[in-house]
Every structure is written in structure tokens, then in C-alpha cells.
């Protein structure tokens, strides 16, 4: 598993290096190998297909223009790409929150595949599934229930503190401290497991 991931990352890093030299075929390859993961990440945060498509496109435009700044020794290619897409999407939803004031987002609108079937994995289980490939599974499992749930919702659905508070029917202060504590624990645990560097 880890060897697979290493090989994949090495392949992607090589593609990004070629993209930095304006190699269109390498860029097409990179897109083919990463777009379905990144589209999924984008859809979870913005929830509207059309917008997710647009943001995904913008993220790849960004990748095309900034591949030269990618430093393989500082981040895995998947990390770098995921961060570009997530940041693009988070900027969008946060700005929209400000613009519209209303923060109601009807779950499932326009994105039926996001409506999780009953009994399907919830965000917290997904967090564990994602972590499974890494040593961080233990770290995620060690989080308290509230922290784990709040972090998972924030991460997978792009919710803000107040949306989380609404969603979890908890006071804002409680949710904030769940997240804060959860993140601190996660970091400590990851460093302890030697996963980080």
C-alpha cells in the first residue's frame, strides 16, 4: 500500500516537473490521473456541480501556471494538488457566506451523489477510511467523538464553525473547542507516529 502510494507520488512528481516545462501531454496525463479525486474533493465542499467544475478548472489552470513552484522535497504531489483545489473551493464558499449572509445550503441539491444513503459511511467513517492507508488512522481514532465528528464535517463538507454548531446542535464555543482540541491532538499524535516529516 505504502509502496503503491510512493510509486504513484513519484510518477505524479515527474509529471508536474514536465508540466513546469509546459508539456501539454504531461498535463493531460496529470489531469487524467488526478481529476476524479480532486473533483470529488471539490464537490464535497461546494456541493454544486457546475461550480465544482469551474473551480476544478481554475485549480488546474493554477497548476499549469505554477507547476514550477512545486517543490517535491516539501510536499507530496497529491498534497500539493489537494491543497490547491481545497483552497480554491474554500475561498469560494467562504466568500459566498459573506456575500449571501444566509448560510443555508440544502444538502443534496444539485449533487445527488453526495446524498449519502442510509447506513453509508458518514464523514467520520470516511475520515477513518481516508486515514486507513496511513499511520494516522490510529490518531483519528484516538480523537474524542465530538472532535472527530466536527473535524470530519468541516473537512468533508467545508462547513464553518457556525454551520458546524448548527449541524451538531451544539453551542458555537463547544464546537470551536472540539475542533481546536482535535487538531492539537491530531498533530501531536501524527508527530509521535513519525508520520509528518
Amino acid at each position, binding site marked *: 500500500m505504502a509502496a503503491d502510494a510512493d510509486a504513484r507520488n513519484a510518477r505524479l512528481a515527474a509529471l508536474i516537473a514536465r508540466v513546469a516545462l509546459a508539456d501539454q501531454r504531461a498535463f493531460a496525463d496529470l489531469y487524467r490521473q488526478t481529476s476524479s479525486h480532486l473533483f470529488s474533493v471539490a464537490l464535497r465542499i461546494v456541493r454544486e456541480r457546475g461550480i465544482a467544475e469551474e473551480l476544478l478548472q481554475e485549480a488546474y489552470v493554477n497548476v499549469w501556471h505554477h507547476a514550477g513552484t512545486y517543490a517535491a522535497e516539501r510536499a507530496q504531489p497529491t498534497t500539493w494538488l489537494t491543497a490547491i483545489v*481545497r483552497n480554491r473551493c474554500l475561498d469560494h464558499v467562504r466568500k459566498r457566506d459573506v456575500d449571501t449572509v444566509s448560510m443555508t445550503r440544502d444538502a443534496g441539491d444539485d449533487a445527488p451523489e453526495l446524498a449519502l444513503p442510509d447506513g453509508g459511511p458518514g464523514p467520520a467513517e470516511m475520515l477513518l477510511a481516508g486515514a486507513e492507508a496511513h499511520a494516522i488512522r490510529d490518531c483519528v481514532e484516538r480523537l474524542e467523538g465530538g472532535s472527530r465528528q466536527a473535524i470530519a464535517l468541516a*473537512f468533508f463538507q467545508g462547513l464553518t464553525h457556525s454551520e458546524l454548531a448548527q449541524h451538531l446542535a451544539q453551542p458555537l464555543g463547544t464546537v470551536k473547542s472540539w475542533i481546536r482540541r482535535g487538531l492539537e491532538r491530531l498533530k501531536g499524535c501524527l508527530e509521535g507516529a513519525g508520520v509528518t516529516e
Partner: protein
Amino acid sequence: MNLSRPDRARRLDLVAAEYALGTLPARARARLDRIAGSDAVVERALRDWERRIAMLADGVAPIQPPPRVWASLARRLGFDGADDAPWWRRLGFWRPFALASFAAAFALAVTLFAPRTERPAESIVVVFAGPDARPALVASVPSGDRFLAVKALAPVTVPAGRALELWMLPGQGAPRSLGLIPASGVGQVRLPAPPELAFRGIDALAVSLEPAGGSPTGLPTGPVLYTGRLERL
């Protein structure tokens, strides 16, 4: 506030974590982005948390974006040949072939039909060329006949386990299969209707390389080896 001061390490770490997790409001996000542009300590804290957080995303089930995303991305970046149309819709696709095939078709038509005193109502001739624009196959059907005769002008090599499939390319809509061509490149393909009906609205034919037995999807799946414009004579 100078976030990179050593006594603010814990605060910076938390803000960076929330940035990466995505819970920070828009203004705080923008401010942090700005600071990270000129402050290496802050930049480093953001990237560290992005790395931790990105690991969590590994488990999401992939969702294929629709083809239009790539198409408009390629157009936006001004890529060579960027076009959202599939190959059989692309006008430019024909350019390399058009001249060669027209010339060859004309020459062929002369040899095929010159001896006749009266011209048949509609005979079909297609000269197929590969990407090198050299004529590779000829297909023809006399008016009233139901068989398209296909003949390779040069030896054709078909890899084991693969087959050549012949397609009609309509002006509107997806390619329609006419069936398989023998690996030798010589054979007869029975038309579903008399040529003037079978080829109504058809601009061109193409030959693609498919799995043995033909395309499993009903559309070309393999590389397109040859294309030729339909000449009605």
C-alpha cells in the same frame, strides 16, 4: 499581529490548522494568504497543516468530472488541438486527409467508371488514409448493390486479438458501425440498406482498431487508423 514570533507559535499553529481544515472565515483566510506570501514561518505552518489535512482526503471516493471540464480547460490554456468535440466531430480532423483522398477518389472514379457509357445514379467511393495522408484502403459500392467492397492498398497489420471496425460518420450524431473488416483488409461488408439510403447524411467513413469481435460499446473505442470522405459519384 506578528504570527511568526516564537511566543505565538501555538497560536500560529492553530490558525494554520483551521486554515487548512477550512473553518476560517473569508477575511482571515485572505489575510493569512497575504502574510504567508512574505513570511516564511507562516508559509511553512500553512503548508505543514495542508499536508496533514490532505492525508485525510485520500479516502474520498473519486468522481469523474465530465469531459467538458478538460475540453474547456484545454481551450482556456490554448492547447494544440483543444476542442471539446470528439474526433469525428472535429472539422480540422479531416484537413490532412481531404486533399489526398479527394484526389485519389477522383482518380479511382475515373478508372472505375470510365468504361461505362452511362453513370450510375449513386455509387459510393471512399478512399481511406491514415495520419500520414497516404491512401491506405478503398471502399466502394456500385449503385443498387448491397455490398461495400473494401480493399487495402497496402498491407494492413492487425495485432493479435484486435479487429478492424468500419464506421459511418454522420453529419449529426455518433458514429454507426458497419461491421468488421477482415484482418487482410480485403472483404465485403453488407450494408443495412441500399447505398443511397444507408449513406444518407453520412459524410465520411472511418476504420478503428477494436477488440476482437468489435467495439463493446457500440462506439469506436480504439485508435482511429483511417478515415475517408464519402464521395458520391
